[in-house]
């Protein structure tokens, strides 16, 4: 179990230090600083073992969060906890910066007391936490004894994530399918590796304790349902997707998922992540990058890059950024592009080409002349891949939300009364093309 938790700033100064168990001494704080933060070689492994003590760390905007333990803990659990911790902090005070941490240190200690108990992770649901950990302090007249006991029973109850007795005038539900698509492509256009990791995020403003059911075009579910009507299978078979693996929010009834493949749950109030999944087959690649690199003698390099958008013309991609690496001996760059803005960024050794918006089924190109300084080094340029960033309003995995039904037997509103919104956002993960 987690023995202690420390937060350091970029210099390695300790901002937050909370020790949960006796086996972690004060010197553990220094051990991590000396061996990881100030190490001569950059430490790339997120887990470091120093003197039979394990340190698990994540970095958030130059701040280090480190969980320490002397026991053989489940590393995945520790990291899951650290991510959750970051989410909780972000939900309370926004960006995790040194200043924000310093300004909220009382709050952070309070949170740490709540979400970790003797090193065991506890309820880390933001919504639930916000009911009893508030920044403005608790005034006695606001919170009656009844309310307090209600909190206790909720937190310790079966459905710890949802408070009873919530009422909304408008029952609304927002559903976001957020995906990031990763690609590595050969210069000839062959896909070397590609996968999509996606999340379904919900924001619910529903009264009472509604029971929800979520359906999507998962291959297994479709096939199971299609058993009865054979022709439906063939019709919808095309659109169904194969999900490699998925994880769910704690509110989802896993027993039901196992037996009926249906996702049913009582959602917590406000924002939460319903599920996470990964697919590797039949991925829609929103953009195609066609590089052309020509070496003209020893001192010149001509680069031409064409990008083609490969989705419905009615959709608009946004925040497109193409990063073309330049050789290490670049002495000057001239760029011509028809669309967007391109600039040579010396500090990153790359040409960065930015386009604000681009519709589907279009293409655009950039050409650059790179002047090189002759060097006496015989090493050839390694030609790192061209990488790309974008945001498109579609799900590259092909995932479709088929339905989201809400049942609330106690309060009298039905599925039709709920206003539901769904949107798809596909972002680039590591989207690279070799040149």
């Amino acid at each position, binding site marked *: 179990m987690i023995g202690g938790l420390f937060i350091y700033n970029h210099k390695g100064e300790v901002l937050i230090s909370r020790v949960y168990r006796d086996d972690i001494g004060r010197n553990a704080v220094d051990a991590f600083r000396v061996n990881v933060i100030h190490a001569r070689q950059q430490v790339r492994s997120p887990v470091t073992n120093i003197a039979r003590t394990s340190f698990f760390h994540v970095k958030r905007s130059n701040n280090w969060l480190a969980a320490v333990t002397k026991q053989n803990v489940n590393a995945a659990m520790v990291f899951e906890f650290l991510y959750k911790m970051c989410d909780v902090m972000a939900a309370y005070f926004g960006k995790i910066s040194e200043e924000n941490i310093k300004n909220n240190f009382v709050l952070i200690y309070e949170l740490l007391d709540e979400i970790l108990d003797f090193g065991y992770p506890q309820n880390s649901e933001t919504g639930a936490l916000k009911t009893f950990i508030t920044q403005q302090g608790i005034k006695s007249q606001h919170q009656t004894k009844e309310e307090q006991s209600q909190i206790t029973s909720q937190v310790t109850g079966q459905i710890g994530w949802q408070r009873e007795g919530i009422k909304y005038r408008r029952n609304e539900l927002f559903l976001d399918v957020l995906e990031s698509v990763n690609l590595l492509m050969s210069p000839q256009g062959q896909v070397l590796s590609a996968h999509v990791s996606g999340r379904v995020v919900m924001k619910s403003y529903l009264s009472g304790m509604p029971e929800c059911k979520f359906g999507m075009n998962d291959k297994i579910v479709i096939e199971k349902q299609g058993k009865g009507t054979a022709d439906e299978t063939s019709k919808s078979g095309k659109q169904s997707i194969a999900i490699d693996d998925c994880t769910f929010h704690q509110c989802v009834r896993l027993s039901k998922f196992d037996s009926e493949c249906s996702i049913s749950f009582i959602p917590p109030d406000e924002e939460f992540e319903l599920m996470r999944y990964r697919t590797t087959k039949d991925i829609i690649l929103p953009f195609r990058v066609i590089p052309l690199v020509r070496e003209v003698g020893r001192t010149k390099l001509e680069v031409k890059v064409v990008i083609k958008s490969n989705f419905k013309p009615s959709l608009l991609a946004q925040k497109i950024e193409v990063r073309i690496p330049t050789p290490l001996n670049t002495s000057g760059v001239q760029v011509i592009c028809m669309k967007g803005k391109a600039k040579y960024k010396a500090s990153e050794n790359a040409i960065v080409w930015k386009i604000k918006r681009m519709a589907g089924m279009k293409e655009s190109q950039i050409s650059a002349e790179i002047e090189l*300084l002759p060097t006496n080094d015989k090493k050839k340029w390694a030609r790192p891949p061209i990488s790309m960033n974008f945001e498109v309003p579609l799900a590259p995995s092909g995932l479709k939300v088929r339905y989201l039904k809400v049942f609330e037997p106690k309060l009298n509103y039905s599925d039709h009364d709920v206003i539901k919104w769904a949107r798809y956002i596909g972002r680039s993960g590591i989207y690279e093309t070799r040149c």
Partner: protein
Amino acid sequence: MPAVSKGDGMRGLAVFISDIRNCKSKEAEIKRINKELANIRSKFKGDRALDGYSKKKYVCKLLFIFLLGHDIDFGHMEAVNLLSSNRYTEKQIGYLFISVLVNSNSELIRLINNAIKNDLASRNPTFMGLALHCIANVGSREMAEAFAGEIPRILVAGDTMDSVKQSAALCLLRLYRTSPDLVPMGDWTSRVVHLLNDQHLGVVTAATSLITTLAQKNPEEFKTSVSLAVSRLSRIVTSASTDLQDYTYYFVPAPWLSVKLLRLLQCYPPPEDPAVRGRLTECLEAILNKAQEPPKSKKVQHSNAKNAVLFEAISLVIHHDSEPNLLVRACNQLGQFLQHRETNLRYLALESMCTLASSEFSHEAVKTHIETVINALKTERDVSVRQRAVDLLYAMCDRSNAQQIVAEMLSYLETADYSIREEIVLKVAILAEKYAVDYTWYVDTILNLIRIAGDYVSEEVWYRVIQIVINRDDVQGYAAKTVFEALQASACHENLVKVGGYILGEFGNLIAGDPRSSPLTQFHLLHSKFHLCSVPTRALLLSTYIKFVNLFPEVKGTIQDVLRSDSQLKNADVELQQRAVEYLRLSTVASTDILATVLEEMPPFPERESSILAKLKKKKGPSTVTDLEEAKRERSADVNGGPEPAPASTSAVSTPSPSADLLGLGAAPPAPAGPPPSSGGLLVDVFSDSPSAAAPLAPGSEDNFARFVCKNNGVLFENQLLQIGLKSEFRQNLGRMFIFYGNKTSTQFLNFTPTLICSDDLQANLSLQTKPVDPAVDGGAQVQQAVNIECVSDFTEAPVLNIQFRYGGTFQNVSVKLPITLNKFFQPTEMASQDFFQRWKQLSNPQQEVQSIFKAKHPMDTEVTKAKIIGFGSALLEEVDPNPANFVGAGIIHTRTAQIGCLLRLEPNLQAQMYRLTLRTSRETVSQRLCELLSEQF
């Protein structure tokens, strides 16, 4: 020298450095550096000319980035350009960059050398200094090649400034150290010696360093430096401390120079000229006198400087070893230091005394300090000082004080540091043996030794005890009695059991008369230890038992019972089991006479150098103790003229079986653990450590070489240690050869390095590539090395395979010719009779034909000859020659550059037992070589 004024600082550089220091993270730092590098690259692009200042600034930034740990692959040219600037700061930065960054194989080296040359010729002392410093800092072979001729000229030129001379001397020293072969000796050497008379003390100091190094290599050329050095030294020593101004260091005049001069004098024997000699003696006396004076300053630097000169003077005195008076004074001086507060001084004093002890003049004087040294041994806190004290005790030991010293060492051993225990044990063992007047004392000492530090007593020590006891009749009885008593202790070390077992087995009868040590008691005593011992010791004890059977027939039954027990007869260890079975059988079948003959007392060991001594030397490295040891042996040669027995002659060195052989019925011949007899005594091995150049070709390798002309696989070389096998295949002009090195011994070969040596001619015509092999070859193991061969053009010589390795302590060197011959690249061609004669005629040019007539060395068998011709590589053409007795062959030699057609004809003459061999090829040298090779075969 133009100082760097404040306005001259580079603002851009300062800003850049402060930017980097303010970076919050590694990533930010890398970003900043990338940006700066891009900026510098765009500046260096070459479309605009840069002024000297910016060039200097950017080169400085590059240097800073490099020192931060990033690779720099441009800007070298700009740095070289800076060298031609006339401003000091720019030139300085240029040289700095080059010393740090330019590697010797750069193509810029010519430009750099040119710039340096210009600076050396500039007559501007600052620039010359910068250039010399750069040469010395780089100090590569290329630099040496370019400037080794130039620098001596600058050094001895009359008009060179002092500071430049100083730099030149040190620069030359550096070049001489890296590549001594490139520094030409010439008439400048005699003029360098005169620099010792220079006005400027800096020049003298630098020159002394140079001369000392040079004189170590060529003492003859610098002989004149002795008198100059002496006079310079006497001027320094006699000068008042204020005379030398800058060179007086805490009231000591020119200590560094004095030390260097004294070192220089240590390269030579005492001067012969009595005047010089007198002067030197005066100097040394003066230095010794000064040591007695009260210190002029309380500062530690003062005493350090003074003592440095003093110790160097003492080592000169010791080196000369000719002035008894000085030696004794030095010894007394050191004696004072022995009780000094300063630990370093005590250490140095002990160390110097060690060498003093070996001089005949001062040996007695050293001995007077014995109490102090023993005291140091007991009370000193620092282990390294205690170690020196042990060394000194060892060095000062002789017959008169041996008993005392050995006793002290023994008592110290109980508390001694673990790291030096083994060494002390060896020393005690040696001293006890060497100065033993009374061998009972010796036996007592060694047994004591085993009792106190049994774990540190190596095999050699107890072998030695046994050798001595066996060779000396007078101590045998005493030894038997003592070990018997020692064995009665409840817990005794295994080494003691070994010694006890061996001695009682040999001489147990000498104490059997005493009822307290009756045969049965002896046996039970030994057998009570049996189960606590390791296998080799048990094996030894079994031999002791069978010896008891011979010595005391009355215990025969008991012993047979023991041998017959399951734990012996069915022992898991083969050696023990075999011994038990054989001894049991021997005791039952053999008559008493046979038993008495087989189990006779061991004969005395032949005289040989003590192996313990060799071991001690090995431990300390050959150079440190050797001289001392040598001297000691000479002095003590007459002290103990008695037999100096050797480690048991045949197999006593191999662990399990000092007694296996004494019976002569060891089942397998004991593995030869020691080096083969040819390599001489152990002592010699230690000295023959230096790897010599390639050994002469191994005998018999020529024979083997000839055998391989017609075949590709087989054993190329074999001796007691090593076997070299070959396996090779050739196709057209390429070939591959596998060389197998087999270690025939049971010990590991170390530093095993095979090298292929090709003459220059051969290298051009034959390209060989090898992979290195593992430097350690285990006993009985075989390693393989592949050689890739390409024939570039025709060749006559063969490459030599030189193998060096260390076996046991000895250095082995084997050279064999590797059978890669021209005919290996033969491709056979079949052709009809007509074609053959047509081509034969085409090659009618007299140079193309080579004929040789020779006597047959082997019986003239047609089939064998045919096989040989095919093995040679050419096709054997049947029914071509009108005379069926003749052999005809054809083939093509493939080389990278050319293909050479080749026809041959061999005509045997059975009556005369002669052959006539005719070869026609398109190239004269090829015909010649093939003819040579082939004619050897028949």
